[in-house]
């Protein structure tokens, strides 16, 4: 990856991430439970998680809702072909919209795949999602050379990230 933070992680950080990526235990003292499991001091676990958060390695700590189960049935992956020299400026605008959950720059694969900007939008129905797509199109204006929306028709698998216990 372009901006790798691998070097700043030591074994303790890795152990903590691996032990928590599937979620904290729901106990009165979850960080103590993790500490016990890893044979670490609870204060150290809290301190390290705080540091990882500060460094941006952990983006946030909290509830991860399952949008689909909560009624957000219309999940659209909107993809846009915008000039490379404008993608950072435009990506930040689109990524800042409150109905966009994820916004990424990904490579084109010409001629099959001309799109370089991805934005995930979620709505309770397709009408809502279609309106969101129009809003993004307005923001991009002439920079949008072509776009499409890939609605999901079926969820075939969805699990949290599980690194470290697969080998």
């Amino acid at each position: 990856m372009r901006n790798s933070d691998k070097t700043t992680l030591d074994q303790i950080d890795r152990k903590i991430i691996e032990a928590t990526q599937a979620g904290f235990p729901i106990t009165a003292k979850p960080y103590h439970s993790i500490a016990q499991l890893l044979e670490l001091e609870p204060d150290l676990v809290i301190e390290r998680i705080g540091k990882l958060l500060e460094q941006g390695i952990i983006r946030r700590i909290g509830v991860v809702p399952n949008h689909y189960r909560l009624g957000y049935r219309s999940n659209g992956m909107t993809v846009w072909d915008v000039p490379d020299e404008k993608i950072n400026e435009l990506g930040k605008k689109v990524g800042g919209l409150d109905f966009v959950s994820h916004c990424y720059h990904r490579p084109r694969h010409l001629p099959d795949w001309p799109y370089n900007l991805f934005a995930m939008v979620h709505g309770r129905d397709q009408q809502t999602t279609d309106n969101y797509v129009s809003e993004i199109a307005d923001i991009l204006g002439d920079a949008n050379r072509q776009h499409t929306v890939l609605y999901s028709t079926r969820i075939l698998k969805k699990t949290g990230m599980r690194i470290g216990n697969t080998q």
Partner: protein
Amino acid sequence: MTKALDKNIEYSDFNNQSYSSLEQVLMNDFQHDFPLTSQPFHDIAERYSVDVAKIIAIYEKLISEGAISRIGPVIKPNVIGASLLAALLVPEEKLHEVAEMINAYPEVNHNYEREHKFNLWFVITAADEKRLQIILNEIKEKTGYQLLRLPLEEAFHIDLGFKLKWNQH
């Protein structure tokens, strides 16, 4: 996985689930800044003047129902391990079979059918880049279908969670 592949039973039983205002707050307001303290549920309970046992019971229920996937850290991609979004062009009649083959990899954490020529979209998160490439090459060889490799070049979203808007029933 076979069940979820059947279009008719696709999670429809969750359609009209409704949540109490406390449940909604506990889902919406703690997508970030979940307390990093010795007793986080106790701290949440104090904020709403509710018993801690009630808070824990609600979260346990929401997790067991699948309304929330987990409470925990959201890790920046590719900090640990290597991940990639891939798309495969699969003939409709082969979709089920190919999806099962791909889902059998524990490294595949998302797999969606989408309305496009490239109709199967999945995310692979492997222990390292080498393992990631092995899996992609295996999928390509086993299926022979056209594969798009779409690694993340830059993330633009702020990722403070997603504002949940509840239905006005």
